[in-house]
């Protein structure tokens, strides 16, 4: 089991800046147990260029990873990450800015050349936005467009992977062209893949869950939306293929309820049920909580599936008030998650 904590600047205003955040993610994923495959044509972080500067979504390249555990030979899991940017246009047609984009596809086989041939999680945006058109602000694109440093956490052990980009209390900012300041963006971004496990936490070959979540920017000034863009897909290795894609993480929380799991000095957390489609023990990689219950970035030991595990709190991102960006469920904006971190 391995963890990684890094700060990255999600800025595509130059090739160098693009390489810095992309290679930062790449390095961290490998540090926590993912193995990069030998698929041809993968990104070379010393030579890749950020791509077109015209208004559009531009994918510069991809990486392919595989899990690294005893089941990888019989129930393989591969994930393809694509890196790039999207460009927003002003109403005058001048392009601003370059917002980083990541896509992910998950499957059980590749063709060796960058294509996942047995998809269990269709290609989905993990970070970024559709091309937006600004209706206000300057037409000038002469100024530097930069983003602030973001705290990022990674964890894994070859049988699961967790990634949290932009997990900090202050909202990320982008300085757009003269006259336009975006105070928010599509961070935080959460990503988890975990195999099914037995009641003791040992991985089984029944299936896997893929979870994604980010905040879709909207409007002329690229502000953060009001609900997370979240997905959950259960994949079966027992003949049922992939389940339907949910628009939230189905953590068994009692709704918004009383807004806290802190009761009489105790803290309560909520499991994410898994099916393959047989009902399985809960997901080990994530737990649910309310946004004020455990301080952001603090770690807590919690007994799950019979053993004590360390979890990192991702509550309080963007604050603990109404503007919190910790939720992975648009119907429970007071919710947050704990990410396995050991």
């Amino acid at each position: 089991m391995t963890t990684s904590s890094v700060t990255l600047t999600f800025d595509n205003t130059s090739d160098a800046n693009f390489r810095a955040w992309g290679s930062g993610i790449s390095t961290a994923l490998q540090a926590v147990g993912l193995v990069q495959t030998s698929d041809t044509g993968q990104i070379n972080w010393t030579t890749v260029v950020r791509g077109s500067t015209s208004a559009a979504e531009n994918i510069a390249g991809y990486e392919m990873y595989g899990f690294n555990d005893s089941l990888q030979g019989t129930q393989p899991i591969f994930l393809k990450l694509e890196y790039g940017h999207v460009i927003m246009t002003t109403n005058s047609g001048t392009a601003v800015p370059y917002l980083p984009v990541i896509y992910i596809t998950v499957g059980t086989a590749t063709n060796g050349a960058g294509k996942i041939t047995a998809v269990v999680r269709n290609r989905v945006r993990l970070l970024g936005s559709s091309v937006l058109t600004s209706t206000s602000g300057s037409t000038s694109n002469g100024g530097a467009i930069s983003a602030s440093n973001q705290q990022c956490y990674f964890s894994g052990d070859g049988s699961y992977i967790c990634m949290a980009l932009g997990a900090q209390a202050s909202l990320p900012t982008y300085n757009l062209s003269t006259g336009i300041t975006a105070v928010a963006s599509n961070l935080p971004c959460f990503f988890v893949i975990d195999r099914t496990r037995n009641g003791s936490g040992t991985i089984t070959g029944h299936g896997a869950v893929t979870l994604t979540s980010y905040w879709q920017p909207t409007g002329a000034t690229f502000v953060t939306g009001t609900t997370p863009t979240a997905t959950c897909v259960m994949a079966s290795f027992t003949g049922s293929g992939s389940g339907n894609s949910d628009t939230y993480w189905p953590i068994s929380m009692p709704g918004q309820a009383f807004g806290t799991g802190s009761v009489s000095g105790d803290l309560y957390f909520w499991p994410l049920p898994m099916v393959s489609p047989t009902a399985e023990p809960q997901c080990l990689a994530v737990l649910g909580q309310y946004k004020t219950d455990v301080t952001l970035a603090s770690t807590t030991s919690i007994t799950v599936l019979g053993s004590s595990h360390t979890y990192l709190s991702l509550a309080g991102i963007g604050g603990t008030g109404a503007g919190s960006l910790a939720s992975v469920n648009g119907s429970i904006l007071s919710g947050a998650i704990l990410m396995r971190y050991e």
Partner: protein
Amino acid sequence: MTTSSSSLLMDVTSDANFRAWGSGIASGLQAVGLVKTSNTGQINWSTVTRGTATSGAAVSQGYEIYRLNDSLQSTQPVFIKVEYGTSVRGNSGVGGASWAAPAMWVTVGTGTNGAATLTGSVSSRIAMTHASNTQTGQPSTAAATQYSTCYFSGDTSSVCMAIGIDTTIASAASGGVFFPLPYLLVIERTRNSSGTATADGLIFLTSCWPYSDGNWTTIALQARAQTISFTGSGVGSLDTFWPFSWPGLAFGSGSIGNTVDIYPLVVVSPLPEPNALSVLGCYQGDLAMGSTIQITSLGSSHTYIGLTAIGGTDTTAHTAVDSRILTGAVLMRYE
């Protein structure tokens, strides 16, 4: 526990039909254990009228106040206000307005003023009606002709109601006006792990399918869930879904071989409590509508009735209590 079933006509185009519909619901609730209080001003089903048309509004014509009837009622009282009225489909193109559908509102509280008001910790007032709006064009004054199957159950510490459990959604005879069916209502005290009611709190669940647009063409689920605490935390936030522990849409079925997975409803007071006994979740294709099944919940075998495949068997069916899980359905305790 007690059960009751009936067929009701979802029609308020005459005073007589309005009284038949409303009193039918009232009879069902009382038959399964709710006790009508002596609060003043309650509806008289012999004399109440459907009311005066107010274009584009849902109007309450009166109320009843009920209470639970268990050993906890004297110390942790639960009162239920049920209001009956009409949804008026306004018509700016033709003079006058029509009464298109029955309407209900439910509120739960821990006290009353002896008249029309609930006091203490009081839930949100939840409507089970069409959205209030106006529409140009011809009004629909045709009476409904389809009777709807209704189920009631209760055990003095809980009450369940399911109105309009049919394979075809009830509609008016002309104009294509559909009623916001089914209506579902559950009020249940918290329970211990043996199923005995406790003094910690209660859950209040409702569901209906009102029109969500101004032209009365689009129906959308309106599910609500709320908890009242008796341990000092008052009334919880109002949720727009019933918090079952579903694994999401998943594979669309809990039927695996010879077993069927059923999903509990999570209850807090705010202390985590055992699951609700009155309702369980399932996928709509897993059990037949109206069929009963024995399920062990909170340590004992209980009978549940399937509220599945209502108005169809696909994602357009009106079984869901969570708009993100349209293949979901409810099993209602029925014994």
